[in-house]
């Protein structure tokens, strides 16, 4: 693998994990808000 291949892999892993974590966090937020909304009805 070329140097840029390793660089792409490192940045790809980093942003893949960070975006995945953030998306998961926002999903948990939506679910929690929905649960609060549902119980308030």
């Amino acid at each position, binding site marked *: 693998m070329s140097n840029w291949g390793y660089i792409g892999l490192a940045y790809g892993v980093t942003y893949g994990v960070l975006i995945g974590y953030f998306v998961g966090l926002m999903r948990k*937020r939506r679910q929690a808000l929905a649960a609060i909304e549902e119980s308030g009805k």
Partner: protein
Amino acid sequence: MSFSTTRSPSATWPKWLTTFGWITAILLVSGQIYAIVTSPPDAAMGDLQKIMYIHVPSAWVAMMSFIVVLAYCLLYLWKHQPKHDLMAASAAEVGTVFTALAIAQGSIWGRPTWGVWWTWDARLTSTAVMLLIYAGYLTLRSFTDDEERRARWSAAVGILGAINVPIVWYSVKWWRTIHQLQSDMSSISPEYRRGWIINALTFTVLVVYLIVARYHVSLLQRAGEQHAEEQALAVRSVHV
């Protein structure tokens, strides 16, 4: 901040947090592009040096997160307020993500520079131990539903686990390691210094945002669970 069973103002998603998120994203992308574009290839490792702009800040904010865990664990044991436990857990989760990232980035960087993906070097091993400690901390939290017991056990692990943080930091000085000494203002060449500082700062902003966002999600989850419990109790009392 109280944890009453009524819908508290804390169990909402603050608007400023969304704005903070956008500012963080813009700072992060700008900082990364600036460092990648402006840094010349290193004399020894060429363009591989660009991994520094994610690896060093990730390792730095991971350790910073565990200092936050220590602070909030101590606060919990002192004040016995659940919000401190939730903040410690949020910081532990975010810190675990960045520790795993630092290990993965280091491994990818190590392959072309050292010739191996992994070696039992003092810095790498102590970082892996740090990852295991905080993964253990998060696993421990799922062992009991009793909030107070969970917070107390977690606080003990969070405080004991923090002992490893200075070991990780000083490992490159205390032992002969293949890993280089941590960079500082005097050891880093001027052409890399600005990108390094900018990304250290943007990752710090990112980790603060993620910890605070995780904390607010925890508050929402907790409020949702309390509402569900109230409803279940109300239904039961109607049937009785």
